[in-house]
């Protein structure tokens, strides 16, 4: 018999507690007589009696849990393994048996109803409409910068994701990241499109008063590039050749800045001593490159591709080539606002996660590009944006490349992202020297748990873990030892 993946929640088809893909299999293998499913629960039970685990307790659990227990050698073994012999005394509890039984039966009933009513979408819709009543606020203002990274936040409006969650969203176009930064500190708007390091920097009080800003979910991964003016094409082969360049970056607390610094350092160039980094609004980078005011830019899309198509520059490195799967932009809101609008925050976050998942599907990429390219959003050529979204592009050096995840969308905020970012903050002196708790900072800013639950509700399969090895171009980041990673970097490169 198939074991249901217990980590799952809410079958996308029917809303019951299991994976969508397991749905058909479960249905095929379950007893054809529904009475068999509930027959076990008809005898009265007394759960969690001290010192004597009743065999009936396992019968009162949902079938998937029963299977788990059986696979693990029975209930007694499980309890012993978990609590040790007699160790369960403190944690055992007596409760009204009827209540537990009732809940368990409800669970079984939900499974029955769910599988029986598979495909009825009205149930989900009804559930959604009932949720709307709890919204503290339905008209929201969300700040965004007109770049491809903001696609999920922008696209959610024309494609109706906000509406689906009972929200009316006014998208407020910002000129540059400093404007977003100031708006977030002032609390002007409800929620913000931010660069991943920004909530960390704001919460840590770097460059300004500490303002607790939470990172709700990641927007895009990858999706930027180092573009170099075409005049340097002949003498530019590797990172070391960037020495002395004046390079445009969108914001100090941007992945662009951190990745450029990483890249420059890997070529032995100290970013502050051997090159000049210049903060420019993304929309002005291309004209600066064209005018020769900068030699290179680390720009969000589609400005890199536009530089290629306008014959201004060529793509030196995709940021994906420096750190495959690196986070770029994020959806953020202030802690105070979340505290006042818990339900609205969950709704808008879920809408954006939903939208992000939609954008992550390669078959939806063209639709996403069309939704955001128009004049009232990004106001960029659709062709360049499609090249970025499909990953089929010219690099400006005459090569046709196909990199489907040149930009990708994944809402899950890995905490290893945060650890890496804060190590780099330390590395480049953004954080004053000291004993910084990377884990505590990440726990404080990254709302990984909520993003996971919202994804589960959407029928996604978010990771159970919060940390992973991050494989960058020159080294591997081990999130269990961030300080050690930082030390290795400094030891190797002397900075």
């Amino acid at each position: 018999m198939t074991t249901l993946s217990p980590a799952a929640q809410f079958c996308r088809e029917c809303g019951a507690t299991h994976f969508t893909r397991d749905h058909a299999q479960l249905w095929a293998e379950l007893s054809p007589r529904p009475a068999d499913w509930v027959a076990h629960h008809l005898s009265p039970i007394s759960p969690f009696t001290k010192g004597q685990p009743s065999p009936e307790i396992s019968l009162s659990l949902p079938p998937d849990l029963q299977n788990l227990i059986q696979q693990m050698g029975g209930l007694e073994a499980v309890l012993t393994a978990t609590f040790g012999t007699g160790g369960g005394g403190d944690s055992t509890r007596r409760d009204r048996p009827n209540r537990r039984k009732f809940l368990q039966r409800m669970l079984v009933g939900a499974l029955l109803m769910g599988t029986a009513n598979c495909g009825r979408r009205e149930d989900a819709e009804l559930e959604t409409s009932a949720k709307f009543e709890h919204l503290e606020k339905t008209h929201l203002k969300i700040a965004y910068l007109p770049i491809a990274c903001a696609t999920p936040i922008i696209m959610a409006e024309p494609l109706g994701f906000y509406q689906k969650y009972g929200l009316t969203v006014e998208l407020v176009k910002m000129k540059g990241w400093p404007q977003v930064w100031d708006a977030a500190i002032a609390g002007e708007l409800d929620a913000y499109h931010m660069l991943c390091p920004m909530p960390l920097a704001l919460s840590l009080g770097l460059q300004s008063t500490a303002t607790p800003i939470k990172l709700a979910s990641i927007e895009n991964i990858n999706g930027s590039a180092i573009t170099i003016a075409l005049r340097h094409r002949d003498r530019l082969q590797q990172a070391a050749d960037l020495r002395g360049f004046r390079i445009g970056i969108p914001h100090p607390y941007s992945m662009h800045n951190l990745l450029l610094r990483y890249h420059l350092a890997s070529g032995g160039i100290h970013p502050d001593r051997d090159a000049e980094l210049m903060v420019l609004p993304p929309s002005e980078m291309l004209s600066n490159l064209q005018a020769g005011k900068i030699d290179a830019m680390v720009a969000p899309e589609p400005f890199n591709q536009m530089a290629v198509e306008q014959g201004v520059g060529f793509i030196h490195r995709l940021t994906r080539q420096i750190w495959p799967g690196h986070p770029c932009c994020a959806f953020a809101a202030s802690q105070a606002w979340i505290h006042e609008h818990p339900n609205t925050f969950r709704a808008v976050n879920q809408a954006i996660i939903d939208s992000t998942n939609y954008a992550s599907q390669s078959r939806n990429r063209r639709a996403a590009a069309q939704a955001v390219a128009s004049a009232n959003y990004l106001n960029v050529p659709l062709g360049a944006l499609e090249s970025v979204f499909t990953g089929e592009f010219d690099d400006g050096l005459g090569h046709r490349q196909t990199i489907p995840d040149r930009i990708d969308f994944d809402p899950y905020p890995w905490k290893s992202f945060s650890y890496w970012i804060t190590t780099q903050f330390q590395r480049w002196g953004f954080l004053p020297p000291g004993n910084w708790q990377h884990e505590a900072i990440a726990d404080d800013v990254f709302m990984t748990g909520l993003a996971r639950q919202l994804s589960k509700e959407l029928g996604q399969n978010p990771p159970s873990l919060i940390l992973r090895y991050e494989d960058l171009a020159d080294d591997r980041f081990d999130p269990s030892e961030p300080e050690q990673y930082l030390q290795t970097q400094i030891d190797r490169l002397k900075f």
Partner: protein
Amino acid sequence: MYHPEALLKRLKLRNSILLGYFILIIFSGLTACIVYFQGVRQVERQSQQVDLLNTHINEVKNLAFSIAAMEKAARGYLIGQKMDELATYEIWDSQFYQQSETIRALIEDPQQRATLNEIIDVGDRVNELYRRLISYVQLDRAGKSAMIWQEGEVQSITDNLSDLVATFEAYEQAQLEQEKTEQAAALQLLTLLVFGIAIFSGAIALITGSVIAHGISHHLTQETRAIAQSSAEITTTSEAQERNSTQQAAAVSEATITLDELNASFRHAEAQAAHSAKDASQALELSQQGAAAVQRTLDRMALLQATVTAIQSQSERLRSKSVEIASITQVVGELAAQTNLLALNAAVEAVHAGEQGKGFAIVAREIRRLADQSQASALQINQLIGEIRQAIAATAQASTVGTETVNEGVAISQEMAQAFGGVATAVQNVVTNNQQLSLNAKQQVTAMGQMVTAMNDINQAAQSNAAGVSQVRGGVEQLNTALENLTALV
């Protein structure tokens, strides 16, 4: 005005009994309403509140249980490193999330919310920490995980969880106790209400019943008395009526005889009236003939008047002609005088003429004599005309007298004609009256016949009336017996 007895008197017996029941029914309805709204509803509301508080306590216990279960699963994984434990962990994490979302919507009390948020926060922190430890294990850094575990970071997070749950529960329990006290009070009030209203209703029923019973019996006694009195009066009256009936029969017989006599007398009068009418008709005819004769006289008188008028006008013409003749005669007389003078003159001339005038003198003398004779004739004519004029004057006088006489005759005749007209009208009236008299007499005779028949009927009715009165007396005696029985009952 609305004294119960007065009201009862105005109502039918059936209605007054119904009214008595109706008051009771209204009181029952009122009781039910009061018990429902003041008692049952309140108790219901309070038990709902108690249920809600119990739900809160259970939900928070479940929340804490989910955290504990998460911990157990995580510990199980960290020790045994089985993927199944991780799956169980995910289930309990999801359970915890859903429970926390549900209960967040349930709790409104700010203090309880704060406690709840702390509990949820403990869960979130435990979750993050365990996931980190699990991640370390999966990244082959189990040593780091064990190190953190030994540092007691987890324990420090969960240390006050049970305290938080206890705080939450204690607060809810306090509210629960209060609700229960209020519920008990409400139940006591309900009991009091039920018994109080039952006693009150019984008292009302007793009072209403006795008032109605008293009213009905009083009313019945009065009515019985009235009936007895009436029956006595009926007895007296019927006896008197019996006597009267006998007298009436005798009187009717006498009247019948008188009527017969009257009938005969009427027939006689009828015959006389018919005769009188016939005589009057004859008188009418005679008077009509008289009137015709007078009319004829009148016609002749008119003729006579016309003739006399004609005579008058002719004599007038005669008189005017005679005046003309008198004037002509005067002219003739004057001519004769002139002629006489002329003849004298001619004779004087003839003397003058001597012989030759002798023939003329003769002629002149002849002419003088003729003139003298003409004068004498004229004088005679004058005398004659004078006589004629006297005669004409006499005729005119006579005709004037005649006219007057005729006028008088006409007037008299007209008066006579009028008199005859009056006689005819009078006679006509007499005839009409006589005819009416005769008709009346005939009708009276018919009426009299009907009267006699009626009298006979009356006579028969009077006799049967006497029999009826005897029956009434028997009935009244039975009524008296029934009344005696009724009085005994009341």
